[in-house]
C-alpha cells in the first residue's frame, strides 16, 4: 500500500503543464493511475511532456521482470489498427511491428484477459477480424491455435487468438472486434447428463 500512497502523493509535484496534459487524455476509461499511464498509447504522443513530468519527480522504480509489454513504434513505421471493444467503442491505435494483439489490447486497457499469458493455451484473447480480406492476408492459424479457438465463445469464420497475431505492415488499417462474452442460458444447461 505504501508504494501507491507514495506514488499518488508524488503526483502533487508534477508540474502544472504535465498534469494538465495528463488529465486531458482522450476518454479515460479507468481511474487515473501513475504507472498505468506510462503504457497508454496517448502517452507516446505526449511523450516529451510526460517525460519532463517524470524527470521532475525523479521517480524511479526497481527493474522488474517485464512480460508482454509494448515497444513504441519508430516514427514513420507506425501501423494503424482499430480495436472495437465490448461496448462497441472504437479505439484507433498506432502500434509497432511485431507486437501482438493481446499485448496491444492489454497495454491500452481494453478488456482482454489472456489467462494463459499469451502462450496459446486458452481462448480468452479471442478476437474477430472485421474484414475477411484482412483475415486472408494473415498467416494461417496453427493447429494449436485452432484447437483453442474451437473452445472460444462466439467463434466466427474470421476469429483469431490475439496472442497469435503479430503486427506487420500488411495489417495496416485492420479493424478488430472483441467478442462479447455474454452467454445466455441454454436448455442444455439444465439437461441431465
Amino acid at each position, binding site marked *: *500500500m*505504501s*508504494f*501507491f*500512497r507514495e*506514488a*499518488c*502523493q508524488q*503526483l*502533487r509535484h508534477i508540474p502544472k503543464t504535465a*498534469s494538465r496534459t495528463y*488529465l486531458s487524455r482522450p476518454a*479515460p476509461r*479507468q*481511474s*487515473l*493511475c*501513475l*504507472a*498505468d499511464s*506510462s*503504457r497508454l498509447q496517448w502517452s507516446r504522443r505526449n511523450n516529451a511532456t510526460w517525460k519532463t513530468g517524470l524527470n521532475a519527480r525523479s521517480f524511479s*522504480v*526497481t527493474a*522488474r*521482470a*517485464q*512480460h508482454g*509489454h509494448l515497444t513504441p513504434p519508430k516514427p514513420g513505421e507506425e501501423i494503424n489498427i482499430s480495436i472495437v471493444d465490448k461496448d462497441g467503442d472504437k479505439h484507433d491505435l498506432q502500434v509497432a511491428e511485431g507486437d501482438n494483439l493481446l499485448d496491444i489490447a*492489454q*497495454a491500452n486497457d481494453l478488456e482482454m*484477459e489472456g*489467462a*494463459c*499469458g499469451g*502462450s*496459446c*493455451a*486458452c*481462448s*480468452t484473447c479471442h478476437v474477430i477480424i472485421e474484414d475477411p480480406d484482412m483475415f486472408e492476408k494473415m498467416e494461417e492459424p496453427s493447429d*494449436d491455435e485452432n*484447437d*483453442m479457438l*474451437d*473452445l*472460444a*465463445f462466439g*467463434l466466427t469464420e474470421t476469429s483469431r487468438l490475439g496472442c497469435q497475431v503479430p503486427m506487420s505492415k500488411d495489417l495496416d488499417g485492420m479493424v478488430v472486434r472483441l467478442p462479447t*462474452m*455474454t*452467454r*445466455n*442460458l441454454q436448455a*442444455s*444447461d*439444465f*439437461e*441431465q*447428463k
Partner: protein
Amino acid sequence: MNRLPYVCDSCTAQVARVSPRRPQSQLSRLTPLRRHYSVQTARPFRIAIVGSGPAGFYAAHRLLAKAEDAVVDMYEKLPVPFGLARYGVAPDHPEVKNCEEKFTEVAGSPRFNFIGNIELGESLPLRVLKPHYDAILFSYGAPKDKELGIPGEKAIRNVYSAREFVGWYNGLPEHRDLAPDLTAGEDAVIIGQGNVALDVARILLSDINELRKTDIAEYAVEELLKSKIKRVRVVGRRGPMQASFTIKELRELLQLPSVSFDPVPKDLFPSNNIISSLPRAQKRLIQLLEKGSTNDPSTSSKSWSLDFLLSPECLNWSPIYPYRLSHVKFSRNVLDPSDPHSSSAKVSPKYLSSGNRAQVNIPANTFFRSVGYKSLPLPGLEEDLGVQFDEQRGVIPNDGFGRITTPKDTGDTQRLPDGSLLSHLPGLYCAGWVKRGPTGVIATTMTDAFSTADTIVADMGSQRQHALLNSPGRSTGLGWEGVQAEARERGLQTTSWSDWEMIDAVERKMGKEKGKLREKFGRVEEMLEVVS
C-alpha cells in the same frame, strides 16, 4: 506495497487500478470515480468468497475492478490458494497455470484478504460469517467424483478414482497417501472420455524424464518410474461423436513420442457428408480422430486406444490372485438410431440374435473411473443460510446469473426470460463448477465467474435492499475482522497471503534444487511448518 517484488510494473499498475484506499489527494478529487452502488456508502461492501480456485479469483478480479467499495475476503480450505489451477491442471500444462499470475495480481489489492486453512462448514460454521458480510459467493467447485456403482468397484485392489489419482500426482494433501500400485500389469482401463481421462492416460504414457521437470509430485515420479503399464484403454459408453474431451488433449496424446494409437473402427464415424456439415469444433475433432497417430506400433513401446459404446458391468479378479483385478466385463451399446450423430445421442444395450446382451471382457490390471466430478453441499448451507443444494444436478440452484435461488417464496422473485419465476436468496451467489456443474475449461469458468461478479455489482447498484445478505443496519460490515475472533476461539490457525508467498518461495526453491519448476508440499502440516 512492495509485497509483489516479482510483479512487473505494468501489472502493478493493474493492481493499483483496483486499489480502493486512494489517498484523498489531487488525484482522487480530479478523477471522475465511478461509483456503482450507494446502499451503504459509509463503509465498504464486504463480500466473502468461499474457495480460491479460478472461479473465486476471476470473480474477485471483476468485483474489485468494477466496484470500488467492495472488499473481498477469500476463504480457502487448504493453506494455499488456486484450487484446481494448482491441483487439477496437469503438471505438463504449465502454460495453463499462468492464470495464477493474474490471481496473484488480484491478491495484491489492499481490498483483498486471503484466509487459508479454514474449512467453512466444518471447522467454522457458515452462521459465524453471516452477520459480518453483505454478500457471500460460493465458488468451492466439485470436491468429489461420481462413482460407477458396479460390483467390485470398492472391493478389488488397483481400482482408483481419476480425480484422486490427479490429486495424488499433483501433490494434493488429501490424496498424498493414495499410493496407487502401477506395477500390477501392462493393461490399464480408464472409464470415461473427458479431459481428465485423457490427462490420466497421458501421465501414464508420457516419458517420465519429461514429466519430472514439471511440478509433478516427486513421490508420483517415483511410482511412475516403477509403472509396468504399457496399454491404456480409454473407454466410453457412447460413440466418437459424443466424446467430451477437447481436441488439444487428443492431439497431445496422438503426438506422444513412441506411443501408438489403435485406430478407431471406420464404421463408428458418420459419412463424410455429415462430417463436413458439422460445427467447426466437432468437425476438426472427428477429422483428427480419423487421422489417428503416425507412430508405428511396432517401434512404439506403449499404446493407447479409445474404445466406444461400452458400459462397464463388473470388475473381476482371477482365481489365482484374489482381489487383484484381472479383467473388466463390459456390455456393448448401440446409439439411438434416430439421431446417432448428435452430441447428446442416447445409447441402449445391444442384444445378440439369441436375445442375450452383447458383452465383452477386457483385460485390466489397473482401473480408473473418470466419469465426472461432483459438487457437494457445504455443511450448514441449508441450516445456516437456507440454501437447498440440488443433489440431482450437483449444483447450488441459481438463476444462471449467479444469484442463488430457492423453491420457497422469499418475496424477492424474478421473472426469467422463459416466463418462470424464481425466488432469490438475498446476498448469496455462486460461480464456477458449483454453479454450472463440473464442465468446461478455465476460459469457461472465467466467463461464468465474470457474469456472477457483474450480477453482484448490478445488485449492489440497484439499491435493492433485499440484495443484501442482512437487512440494512443488521450487518456489522466487519468481514474477516468480525469472524477472526470466533476462529481464534476455536483454535484455528489460518494462513494469509504473505504466508502463501513464503510457502510458494520455499516450494520454488525446493523445486530448483531438483531441476524442476517447484516441489509442492504434500502435507498441510509441512506447509504450516514453513509459516509458523
